[in-house]
């Protein structure tokens, strides 16, 4: 599968998808190009609003200008904080960010997922993430005694 390397300053273009906005000629984002971006690894279906946000972010994160990148990161984090993004969607974007190797995108979304895990109880995490408990009762009991000191409350 063609991979789009996002961590370069000037994003490399996969020859199979020549219409990568204008990022080959200049690393500055051109607003009029944002909506017509085709990326080598297509962003999975995450809903129209989030898709636009992610696309925009990917474009800006390839910029040379650190201020642009920082502003884009802050914007993304604000968006994540204020919008209700479902768990599945968050994880889909995390996986996508990992595939395209966009560190900032990965950081932002992973931190959000981590926030959802922090300070929760085991059953809550299972509930939220839809994970089934596949331990036997004996194993669970043993685990409970593994780190009792970490769970004294």
């Amino acid at each position: 599968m063609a991979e789009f390397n996002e961590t370069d300053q000037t994003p490399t273009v996969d020859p199979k998808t020549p219409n990568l906005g204008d990022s080959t000629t200049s690393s500055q984002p051109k607003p009029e190009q944002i909506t017509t971006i085709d990326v080598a690894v297509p962003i999975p279906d995450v809903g129209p609003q989030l898709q636009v946000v992610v696309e925009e972010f990917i474009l800006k994160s390839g910029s040379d200008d650190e201020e642009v990148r920082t502003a884009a990161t802050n914007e993304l984090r604000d968006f994540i904080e204020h919008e209700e993004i479902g768990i599945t969607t968050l994880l889909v974007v995390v996986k996508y960010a990992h595939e395209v190797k966009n560190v900032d995108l990965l950081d932002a979304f992973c931190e959000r997922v981590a926030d959802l895990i922090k300070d929760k109880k085991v059953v809550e995490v299972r509930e939220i993430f839809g994970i089934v408990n596949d331990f036997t009762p004996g194993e669970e009991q043993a685990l409970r005694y593994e780190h009792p000191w970490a769970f004294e409350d």
Partner: protein
Amino acid sequence: MTLNFTQRPIFPAHTSEDNMVSQLRTVNGEKGGHEEVHDRFGYRREIVDKGEKDKNKDIVDLLPSDPFGMDIDISTTFTAITGWLGDLELEYGDHMRNKVVNHKEDYRLFAGFNFFWNNAMKFQSFPTNLMYHDQHNKGFDRVSESVGTNCGESVNEFAVCPDVIGGDPHDAFVLALSYLGTKDLLMVERVCRSLCYTIRNDSLLWRNLYVDQPLNERITDDILVRLTNRAEGNLRFLSLIKCPKITDDGLRRVLETNPKLTKLFIPGCTRLSIEGILNNLKAFNSSTETAGIKHIRTGGFYGITLDHYEQLNNLLGVQNNKHIPNYYHRANLHAPCDDDRALDVEICPRCQNLRLVYDCPAGGCRPKDQCRACIICIPRCAECGRCVHNSEYEETFSLEYLCSDCLKQLPRCQEPHG
């Protein structure tokens, strides 16, 4: 007034004020006691009786906008709290009724407030503009989640991961693990087998170990050694903030099995002695396997002498005295600065003792290189780090100094002076 728990939708985690208030509306049933709330705090508020349609605005109007004169938009905050309390009543309703004597609505709210405040445990952060300390912040969403669980349905998108097939964690879940702290990692171990295996065996997750609240008080030498062993010899950064049970011997054992350690933060570990540190460092740095520890934060040791200081500098290989400015901030007291300095203690230019020395950030200060000293010689603003000698300052209730500029930026807790 008895509670009238009507059937109601699950309290969503992210919601506008109105929605939250509407939950409370239903919980509290008929509103008989509005007028009492109206004057309870001596604030004149308009009671807007808009009838059925605008029921969900009533409680907001009734609550005082700024009872403590803090000059903030507390209506948002109180609405959030009342909504939260309404939810907690679902869970703890019986308990509350027994506890509270005065059944007036407002009193119940605030008595409940105290009750839950004192019993708040681990909660997740609430996504509104609450001004409370993070730990308390975490109360809110936890409740909404538990309400979801208790009521057996999850309308809240957050509570369900519908596309997970087979009950296994999503592939991307493990990517988020590296963003978790020690305590959460240990918790997630218990979620399912695959996660347990991943967390125990992925040494990358344990390459940096940060021990802070609340585990710091409980961690012992044995536990520390077990955790550091998970890094399989790849531990790079060990941060032990205020761990009173860690001894010199425990640290020695960790160092023996982790030759790649380069950063060691041990502020507030009261059982570690300066001699013990020096001995451990000598043994560690002299071993050919190790690159040696390059950065150490002690948080200031009592009884550290000039001789100790020189030995430390030698061991850390401090060659140039490149000066990196270090600014005082109350946060630095709990979590040391992770900058490039090799050692945090220095010789105070004024008293010649070995302490943490701070620079002055203020532009208008006397020549900056003269405004360098330990916090005892030059008291500083806890917020911006500026020296408080030549400027207006105030000692706050928590016995820290705040300069006039930082004072102005605080939410006002009292009547303004003049």
